[in-house]
Each structure stands twice: as C-alpha cells, then as structure tokens.
C-alpha cells in the first residue's frame, strides 16, 4: 500500500517537474523566437540604410549583409541586385540557437517625376517649369507652343507660393495639409497635397583624399579625384573637366563674372561640396553634351546653393540642407532638390525625365514574416 502511494506520489512529482521543465523550455524558445524576429528586422533595416545612403558597408553589394549581434546571427539579401531595377526584395533572417525567423520587405524606388523640390517650402516668381527627355533629343526639339512636356512635379513638404504669372506644366504638389498659394491658375496639373512627406537622405561629405588647399584660376582636370579647401573660377578663367572627374570642395565653390567651367564632350563630373556657399553664375558650367546625367552636384552645406546668370545649367543638384536659389535667364535642365527653393527673375526649370528617380524617395510596400 505504501509502495503504491509512493509510486503515485513520485509519478506526480515527476509529471510536475516535466511540465515545469517543458514550460521553461517553451518560454526560452519563445524568447529566442522573438529575438530572432528582432534580428531579422534589424537586418532589413541595415539593408535599407545602405540603400538610402548608397553605401556598401561590407563590400558585399548594397542591400546584402551578415553579422552577429547579442548572441544571435543575421543575414540579409537583396534581389535583384541593387541598381538593376525599381523594386527590390529584402529578406532578412535572424538565427538564435536553433530558432530561425525571417522578415521580408519589398522596397520600391519608382521612377519619380519630382524634378524640383524645396523640402520646407518653394517660392516661385514668374518663370516656367516643364519636362523633356534628354535621351530623345534636345529640349528645343521637344518644345512647342512655349513649353515641352508636362511630366514633372514641382514639390515641397510645405507650402508652394506662386507669384507673378508662373507656368507649371505639370503638378505643383505641396506637403500634406499644405497649399499651393497665390497665382495657381498657371498650374496645368494637380495642386493637391501629397499623401505623405518625402524623405531625403542627407548628403554625406567624406572626401577620401587630402586637400590641395585653395584653388583659383585656369586648369584642366583629367580623369581622377581632386580635393580643395575652396574652388574659385573668377572672371577670365576657365576650369575644364575632361574624362571622369570627382571634385571634392570643402568650403566655398564659386564660378562668377566671365569665369566658366567646361565639361568636355564625353566627360562626367561629380562635385561633392562640404560647407559654405555654392555659386554658379557668370559663364556657368558649359555641359558640352547637354546631358544632365553627366553633371552631378551633391552638397551637404547648410548655406546657399545658387544658380544664376544667363548660362544654362545642364545637371542635377542634390542639396537637401541648403537654401536653393535660382534666378536669371539661363535656367536649369535636369533636377534640383534643396531645403528651401527660391525661384525668381522668371527662372525656367526643365526636368529631364531621363534622370528617372529625381525624388530619391523610397517606399516600403510590403513587410511580412516568412519561414526561412
């Protein structure tokens, strides 16, 4: 009898212990599973960071990565390879112990017609905004009745103020809750506010070479990278760029008076600008091919970025922290993004549709778990 009771008691204790151990194991698995999901999400975030800053942190392709973090491991892959499409699938996998969890995100960077964007506000006095496609010929060949195409958006995350009698052959899109004010009759397309503000990655300034001091005068720059503390082309001087040139300028960049820059036929130029003011006026930069894709300005300044004068500017400017100022009769063929945009003196802005993602904004279209 006692033996029976003891067996029953021991069975009960054993059962209780089993349940307790099982619960503990289950709790541990649950924690590990949660952490594995966190790792998978972190992997996708890291890939998205690489995409937004266009940086390949581990030289394994933008959007790909692997690593260890807090007792677990993660990997992330990007398909198709970055730069080959407009929609990408990021698959992040987190591994903790024997538990694997996956998170999948579909990221889109659609071809955008946001040609000219002032993040906080846009002021336009007179002038014209339209679009053309440089891959289909010159602007003049596509223009008729005073303008070319209307596949362009003049945008802002704030208000857009129009005065004088501007013509916007396309959309004028203010930020959510904001307005197009003033002379709105000249906008051919939508004036409805955007559903969500556009976000712009800051432009990093990290020159990979040491400075050669201040530049001022006439010189021909052949293929290669150059860095100066300031860059000035005053009256009577010419800076010629031939080949593929990368120019880093720490401080003020100025072309003025009868000074000019020349982008030779077939040349490509990227100007990285750090701080101070960036001014193109006077003779401007003559883009021999008139191909906006061949001239890029990327400025991280919080000062002024000014394009003025009678020389046309063929290129794209990304200056999301700067005050953008456009005036004069030369006009811009390409795209321009700045923190604020002041367009005066009847400036003409012609968005080049061949530039595609002028807005540079990413959309996360889908975010789902998956079983790796």
């Amino acid at each position, binding site marked *: 009898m006692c033996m029976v009771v003891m067996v029953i008691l021991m069975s009960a204790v054993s059962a209780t212990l089993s349940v307790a151990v099982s619960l503990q194991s289950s709790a541990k698995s649950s924690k590990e599973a949660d952490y594995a999901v966190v790792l998978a999400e972190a992997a996708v975030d890291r890939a998205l960071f690489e995409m937004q800053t266009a940086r390949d942190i581990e030289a394994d392709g933008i959007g790909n990565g692997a690593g260890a973090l807090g007792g677990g491991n993660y990997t992330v892959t990007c398909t198709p390879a970055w730069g080959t499409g407009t929609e990408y699938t990021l698959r992040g996998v987190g591994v903790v112990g024997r538990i694997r969890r996956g998170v999948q995100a579909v990221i889109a960077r659609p071809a955008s017609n946001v040609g000219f964007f002032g993040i906080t506000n846009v002021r336009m006095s007179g002038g014209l905004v339209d679009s053309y496609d440089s891959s289909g010929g010159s602007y003049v060949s596509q223009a008729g009745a005073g303008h070319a195409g209307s596949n362009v958006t003049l945008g802002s995350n704030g208000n857009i103020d129009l005065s004088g009698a501007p013509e916007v052959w396309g959309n004028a899109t203010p930020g959510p809750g904001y307005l197009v004010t003033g002379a709105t009759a000249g906008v051919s397309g939508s004036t409805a*506010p955007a559903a969500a503000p556009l976000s712009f990655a800051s432009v990093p300034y990290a020159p990979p070479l040491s400075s050669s001091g201040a530049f001022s005068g006439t010189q021909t720059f052949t293929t290669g990278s150059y860095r100066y503390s300031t860059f000035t082309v005053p009256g009577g001087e010419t800076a010629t760029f031939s080949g593929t040139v990368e120019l880093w300028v720490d401080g003020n960049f100025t072309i003025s008076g009868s000074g000019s820059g020349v982008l030779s036929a077939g040349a490509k130029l990227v100007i990285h600008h750090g701080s101070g003011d960036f001014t193109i006026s006077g003779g401007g930069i003559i883009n021999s091919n008139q191909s906006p894709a061949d001239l890029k300005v990327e400025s991280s300044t919080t000062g002024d970025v000014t394009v003025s004068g009678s020389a046309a500017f063929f290129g794209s400017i990304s200056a999301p922290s700067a005050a953008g100022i456009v005036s004069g009769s030369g006009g811009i063929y390409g795209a321009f993004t700045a923190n604020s945009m002041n367009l005066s003196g009847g400036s003409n802005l012609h968005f080049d549709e061949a530039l595609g993602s002028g807005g540079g904004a990413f959309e996360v279209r889908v975010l789902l778990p998956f079983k790796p």
Partner: protein
Amino acid sequence: MSQRPVMPLRFLMVLALCIGAFTAMSSAQQGDDPTHDPARGKIDELLDKWRTSRTKIPVEDLAQALAGTGRGSATYLCELVDNKRHTIPIRAVAMAIGRQRQQGSLATLTRLLEAPEVNERVAAVEALELFGSRECLDLLARTLDEERDEVASRAEAALLVPGHPREILVQTVVGRLRHAKDKGRVARVLGRLGGKESRAALLELLSEPNERSHLAALQGVWCFEDFGDGSVVLQCYRDSTVVAVKKQACLVLGKLGFRSAVRDMIDALRSEDKGLTANAHWALGKLTGLKLKADSDLWEQWWTRTGREQTRTSGS
C-alpha cells in the same frame, strides 16, 4: 573781551553755498548733454564689440543687451536707425526697439517699414511683432500686401504669433480684407485665426462676383480648422466657370469631408482638364476613404452599387 569773528564765518558760508550751487548746475548740464548719457555709452560699447568681434554675436543676444541699456536708450536707438542704418546691425537694433515698446519709437519703425532694402523691412516687421500694440497690428496687416514675399510672409507669421489680443487682431485683419491687393494672404490669416467673425468675412468674400476673391476665400477656408458646412463651397464649385477656382474648391470640399460633393467630384473625373481631374480624384479619396484609381467608370460602379446609398445615409 575780544569780538567774535562773524565776518569770516559768514563769508565761508556764502562761499560754500556758491560752490554747492555751481556743482549742482554743472551736474544738471552734464545730465542734459547726450554725450554723457550712460545708456548711449553702453549702446556704443555694445556696437563697437559687435564691429570688432571675430565671432558673430547672435542677433537675439545683442538685441536683448541693447534693450537692457536703460532709460533713454530708445531715443538713441531710433536715432541710429534713422541716421546710421548702414553702420549698425539693423535687425538687432530694431528688435531692441521693439522690446522696449516706447510709444515714441513707432515713427522710426514705420519709416523702417518703407526702407529700400528688403532685410531692413523684415527687421521692421520683427520689431513690430515684439512691440505688439494695436498700431503695430495695423501696420503688420498692411504689410500683408508687401511686394516682396519675404516681407509679406514674415508679417503673416508675425500676426499669427500667440499673445496678440485676438478680438482686436481679427477686427484689424478683417478691416484690411476690403483694401488688400493680395486678398489670398489676408484670407489665409483669417482662416488660421478662426472664429465667427473670420468665418463671416470669408463667406462674404466667397460671395463676391470675381474669381480672385473666390480663390482667396477658398484658401482661407482651407486654413480654417473647423469651418463646418461646405454647402457654400459646393455652390461656388458648381457656379464657377474658372478651372482654377473649381480645382481649389475640390481640395476644400475634400478637406471639409463634405460628402454631398461626391457626385460632383465623380462627374469632374470626366473633365478634359487633367488638373481638375487630379484634384477631384484627391477629393474623392478624402470623402470616401477609398483608394480607387482616377477612373470615372470605376467610381460610377461604386456610386451605383453602394456610394449613392452611403452618401444619402451619412449626409455630410
């Protein structure tokens, strides 16, 4: 017995009195002499420091220091603005005048508001904002018509700063509406101020028989936090033959959530004007919560199946 020395004592007393009187007169003269005013001295010292300093002194800090230089400084600051504008940090000096709120300074600020340089006119607006008197509100309301957008928009912002006596502010701005060249800006200020009087002024503007007034009024209604019934806006949309007015009305109807406008918006999808179609589509999204494409057939199907009934039962 010897005589008391009366004469020398009297002489000394008279001499002492004369010296005392002379000293008092000299001090009084020095007090009247502006070059000896301690406030001027402090102002000059601050401005010299500003001129010679290698690092920029923040405008706010300089303005505060100038404003705190004591009695009588307002007169000197006004003199500097009137006569030596180009040699002083105009923004800081104007702000100091604004902070001191001396009635006699208004004439200087009024003149500064008409200065040839844009930055000087902006400085005047900032000073008037700080001053905040009824006359200042009136001047700011007039400045809404400024040719240069930088000045007008600064005046707009100055009027909307909290702290102004609301009733007086609304009356001042409503009073400005009739004479304004840029009614849109005035209407937007009224919209942001809100209230019964602002609403009445905007409705009156909407009833005027010209498209510019309609556009201006619609911008004001857009800025209104709780305008209420959109029937007047819908009527304006239906009556107007101007595309710009119709486009603006679509946006306002969408923002107001005036569901009685749904049928009109669906009809607008068939317009030849792409801008009107786009704005009507945006409004439909707001009014119905649906994310259908800008396809008139698609919306007609929705209207036939469920939309008409939903709109009838929910009202606007």
